[in-house]
């Protein structure tokens, strides 16, 4: 992960039309954004598509970044927008095809067939989408509360509340998993 000041400098050069800076940003930020999409229960190929779409948007609106502002929330805000857009399109497509199954049911099948297991996705799977993205940004991307609030267009208080609820849910899930493991271990 690049330090924030380095990202700011690269972003400024990217805005000036420097291809080397653009490539460095693509290589530095993409794994983080890709992981963000995968953590939101996207398949790997969906995450690839979302990443490409995100970079198209980033490139189109790169003038909206102002130097001195935090870089990561800017990237994540656009990535989040692309993901929400993708989710809406998926719903519309499903309506057109008259499929009755719920999109969330399909998405929540974490260890589905043909999907490689991913630890982070497994850990965050029990959480609702809004809490999952907050935990991913706070604990995996290492963003501060204010940066997460910027990326999600909410207040710091709201981010704190979502993180608190997510931790409560994770505590319950992990405790349940631990007790199940204990029981099966006892039987063996």
């Amino acid at each position, binding site marked *: 992960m690049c330090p924030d000041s380095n990202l700011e400098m690269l972003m400024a050069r990217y*805005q*000036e*039309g420097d*291809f080397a800076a*653009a*490539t460095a940003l*693509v*290589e530095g930020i*993409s*794994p*983080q954004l*890709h*992981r963000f999409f995968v953590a939101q229960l996207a398949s790997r190929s969906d995450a*690839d598509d979302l*990443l*490409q779409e995100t*970079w*198209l*948007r980033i*490139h*189109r*609106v*790169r*003038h*909206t*970044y*102002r*130097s001195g*502002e*935090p870089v990561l*929330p*800017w*990237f*994540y*805000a*656009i990535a*989040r*927008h692309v993901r929400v857009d993708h989710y*809406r*399109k998926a719903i*519309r*497509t499903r309506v057109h095809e008259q499929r009755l199954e719920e999109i969330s049911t399909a998405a929540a099948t974490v260890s589905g067939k043909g999907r490689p297991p991913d*630890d*982070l996705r497994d*850990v965050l799977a029990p959480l609702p989408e809004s809490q999952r993205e907050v*935990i991913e940004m706070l*604990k*995996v991307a290492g963003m501060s509360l204010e940066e997460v*609030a*910027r*990326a999600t*267009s*909410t*207040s710091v208080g709201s981010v704190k509340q979502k993180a608190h609820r997510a*931790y409560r849910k*994770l*505590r319950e899930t*992990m*405790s349940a998993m*631990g007790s199940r493991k204990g029981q099966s271990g006892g039987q063996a």
Partner: protein
Amino acid sequence: MIDREIDETLKRVSQTPHAVEPVLLGSIADSVKATLQPVRCLPPTWILACGLALLCAAVAVAGAARAGFYGVEKMNSLQLMLFFPVLTILIAVAATEFVNAMIPGSLRKLSPSALLATNCAVLVGVLGLLFRDYRTEHFLSAGIICLLTGFLHAIPAGLLCWLMLRRGFAVNSVSAGLVAGTLAGLAGVGVLELHCANFEAAHLLVWHTAVVPVSGAAGAVLAWALRWQGGRIAEASAQRTPMS
């Protein structure tokens, strides 16, 4: 399970390397290179917010100049000194929030609905405090005229504000539409207070204040319709594009 253990689990999973296909990164870099040119960044938030506030003030003054400054001429000095500064502050706050809604990664101090509610509450409070004529003559007929006048002036204010921030990018277009509508509605209230000489408290509290939520709702609905239309167009073009 305690929070520290959850933190450790998350730390462990976050430290596992997550690679992206080099081919994918290469194709992204190539697509960026194809249209890479220097860009002019947006000005700082305060400059854009001042511009928006000036636009709203210009629309309010122009509207009142066309219809007549009857309201402001009839106001006493206390009403003049209290109402217009409060309206200016509300416009400044709404303008700042609109700029934040149009720039990704900006820190939002108020949610769009809280902004709308705060504006309505402050307007009701100030108008209720300053205007104490409790008669209600021609409540409905006079009220609807004022609501329409305010809303019709909010439309150009909203359009001009959107034009000014057309280079921005709203990550949530509906909430940006709600904020833009609220800001434009405040310009509409400005026109009414400069023009309308009906100082009945009920008229002011209901019909003048109503311009803000009506305009805000119109902004949100318009943004939603544009987003829906954009989605349909994108979908249709994707269906027309042959699969590779």
